[in-house]
């Protein structure tokens, strides 16, 4: 059981993602990016190298500047997305990353550096990101709040 | 929603046969008006009720109610050829980018496709080959076990690098020849265009894979090829069919045969993977080439005679190029494992390779109904006699 949000949780998802070849093809595949996740007042960085998510760690907010892009939404929305994935085995039609990004005026994916080329990695690797969070269906999750 | 056919007129709307409304807006486009952006932004600041939609496109279709279901191998391109969507006309006069089966708009300026006759490019297998190419894709960076490369004697490494250099150059010709013609083909035959996209992508992989091999094991690139056949392929003024004959059949079969022998004499798994994967790709290209030539010969008067003439010309160019000793010597060294036995054992394997190529080439042409007995170059025929 891993608590969301925590490094343990992101690590558990990382391991589930890395372990299944099904997450590495079908439009996923090798990529190279550092993605951030901002959940309330906590921030995490995930490193994707090749076919793997190679690292997950908790960082301070200024460290998000090193991310190519980071996903930012209220804790309640994160929880809803993860619960939706757990219930369905993957994100349903209303909880995919792109949907969540376009459904909110301020978007889901953003950056501190403002370099759109790097922000566009959210689009270029969208399937991989989706597979990563879909892999959370295989992690028993309890929520901090 | 009822099925509509013919001009695309919507039943019950306007007179029968009425044309769909033009897409041109009634007001001039904003950029023709001063401060259009500011005006637009100001309009946005004060809530504006958008104009009602015209929806003139609704109900406009030649065939509705189409429901193609995925089969055992998924939903394949060829599966879509049902009803009107599968009607592939002998000539596609539409000079726009109208998808086959869609309702064309009148008055659209032509884009200008020069290949509009089915017999100039068609092959029944194109759709299947397209899907096969996608399913059997490979990436040289990660699907070749590069770590299995081991240091080789200098003469052998030099020979392999020379062969890789020439094969990379052949791949470049594939790229340039296919992309030169592909964009000139009308979209009535999208299956062929889509398959050729996979061919040029395969060629990109081959160009890359052979270059990587040459630079990965202490060698480097060798001497460029003589280029006679390259130029013949790229200067095929007679059209795509002529290019197909030279690129996929004459040169393609030669390359394929070479790859088979290279795979047989590969020094490691990395080379085996490169040659083996390229071989699969080339086999697909050849299949298209033969299928297209068959279609062309059987649907165009004189095409058999024309093909016969092209063969006579092409074979002579190939023979001239094969007189150059570089590739022959390099291959002989590869087959012999070094210079020491290249002139004897290696050369014997080379002759065997050439025999296999010539035999296969003649078989293919015979199957197409183009017997290559008359005026067949002796320099190629000799490989059959030396059996």
């Amino acid at each position, binding site marked *: 059981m891993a608590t969301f949000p925590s490094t343990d949780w992101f690590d558990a998802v990382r391991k589930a993602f890395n372990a299944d070849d099904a997450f590495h093809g079908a439009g996923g595949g090798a990529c190279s990016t550092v993605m951030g996740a901002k959940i309330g007042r906590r921030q995490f960085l995930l490193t994707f*190298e090749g076919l793997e998510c190679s690292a997950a760690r908790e960082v301070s907010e200024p460290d998000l500047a090193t991310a190519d892009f980071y996903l930012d939404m209220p804790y309640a929305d994160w929880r809803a997305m993860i619960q939706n994935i757990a219930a369905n085995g993957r994100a349903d039609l209303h909880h995919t990353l792109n949907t969540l990004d376009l459904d909110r005026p301020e978007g889901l994916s953003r950056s501190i550096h403002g370099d759109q080329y790097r922000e566009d990695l959210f689009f270029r690797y969208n399937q991989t990101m989706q597979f990563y969070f879909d892999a959370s269906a295989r992690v028993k999750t309890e929520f901090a709040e | 929603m009822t099925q509509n056919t013919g001009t695309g007129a919507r039943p019950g709307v306007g007179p029968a046969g009425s044309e769909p409304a033009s897409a041109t807006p009634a007001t001039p486009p904003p950029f023709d008006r001063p401060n259009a952006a500011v005006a637009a932004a100001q*309009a946005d600041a004060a809530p504006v009720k958008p104009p009602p939609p015209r929806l003139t*496109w609704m109900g406009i279709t030649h065939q509705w109610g189409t429901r193609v279901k995925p089969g055992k191998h998924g939903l394949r391109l060829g599966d879509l050829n049902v009803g009107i969507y599968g009607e592939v006309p002998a000539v596609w006069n539409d000079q726009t980018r109208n998808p086959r089966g869609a*309702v064309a708009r009148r008055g659209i300026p032509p884009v200008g496709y020069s290949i509009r006759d089915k017999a100039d490019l068609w092959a029944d297998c194109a759709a299947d080959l397209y899907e096969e190419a996608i399913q059997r894709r490979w990436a040289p960076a990660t699907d070749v076990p590069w770590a299995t490369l081991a240091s080789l004697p200098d003469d052998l490494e030099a020979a392999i690098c020379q062969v890789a250099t020439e094969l990379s150059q052949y791949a470049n010709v594939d790229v340039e020849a296919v992309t030169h013609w592909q964009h000139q083909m009308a979209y009535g035959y999208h299956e062929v265009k889509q398959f050729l996209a996979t061919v040029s992508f395969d060629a990109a992989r081959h160009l890359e894979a052979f270059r990587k091999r040459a630079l990965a094991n202490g060698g480097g690139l060798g*001497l460029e090829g003589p280029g006679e056949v390259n130029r013949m392929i790229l200067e095929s003024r007679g059209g795509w069919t002529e290019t197909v004959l030279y690129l996929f059949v004459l040169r393609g079969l030669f390359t394929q045969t070479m790859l088979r022998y290279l795979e047989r004499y590969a020094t490691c798994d990395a080379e085996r993977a490169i040659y083996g994967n390229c071989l699969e790709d080339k086999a697909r290209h050849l299949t298209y080439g033969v299928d297209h030539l068959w279609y062309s010969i059987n649907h165009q008067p004189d095409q058999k005679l024309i093909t016969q003439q092209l063969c006579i010309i092409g074979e002579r160019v190939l023979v001239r190029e094969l007189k150059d000793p570089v590739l022959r010597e390099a291959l002989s060294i590869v087959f012999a494992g070094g210079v020491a036995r290249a002139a004897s054992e290696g050369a014997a394997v080379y002759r065997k390779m050439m025999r296999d190529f010539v035999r296969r080439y003649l078989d293919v042409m015979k199957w197409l109904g183009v017997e290559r007995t008359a005026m067949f170059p002796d320099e190629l025929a000799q490989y059959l006699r030396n059996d």
Partner: protein
Amino acid sequence: MGEAGAASQQGELDLGWMKRRGEWGVRAEPSKQGLTLADIQIGSYGDPVAVSDNQTGRPRGAAARATSMRIGGYSVTRKSEIWLENASFLYEEALQRQWSSATDVPWHTIRPLPDDIEQAQCQLATFLTEVEFVAGDVPARWISQTTPDYFEPRQCLLAQVMDESRHMDVFRKRALANGGGLMLTSGGTAGVVGSIDLSRDFTEMSSRLHISGEGAVLTIFRMGELMAYNEAEKAMYRLCSQDEARHVAFGVMHMRYMSEAAPERREEIQCYLDEAERQILAGSQNPAGTQTDASEALAILLGGGKDKYDEGLKKLIAIRKRQVTEYVKRVRTTGFGDRFDNGRSQLPALMNQAAA
């Protein structure tokens, strides 16, 4: 007879060619991502010349033969016309992230939809098929005209041609998979959009295709994913978006290179961007403007039906405003962002008004 020496006779080898070769002793090492194109950019092999005189199609770095047949006639022979710094990376990424419309889209999840929704989906699919025809044809033409000395950008364009082929295939499949069919062509791929065909210069073409065109199509694909009614449509639009974002990245990086390497062309490139922005302004940024058929279809899909068209149109305009924001940020990334600060571009005024 080639320069390699006298004809070999039976039992004798010339071997003169062994002394005629490119830089020797090269040993590229695979990285974590395998043996990539970037890994073989070693020594002279990784150093494309500023102006190419390669008319025989020889691989870059191979030894030349004086007697080799000329095949060239390339129109793109200067590095500054086509280069981008991360072409190798984008190409390898394209290879790794290929997908199959036949098997990677869960077509079995499509269920019958209300007629207006199905018509809108099919009209959009018809339009997108048509648009992808442009994006497949045009790069192909430029590939054949580019010297192989700049094979890295060419490889990217070859990957794009493959991607676009897949897109035109997947939209045709969508149109014919759920009780619908192909509908009315837009004709918009001639004329203004068709000016991509008419480009006489690679950078001109790339600014129209990659920066402007593909950027707009990326937004449409993202909207497609947002408004998808089943897993198949979600997957289809998401996978297409990935490809499209890669094409946009090509354009951005090429333009960035141009900004640094060809300052004498800045004003020319600014004119291409002027033209791209005229199209943005003429589009559905203007809520009072007439919508195209494809935009009407999008509005129906975003709203959830013909009777919710107004709602859908508002969403469409809101998303298109984000597209403008992203476009501006991309152009700033390329080094041409001064146009937004010196009054040349009208887009900032549009964005400020929208934000107010």
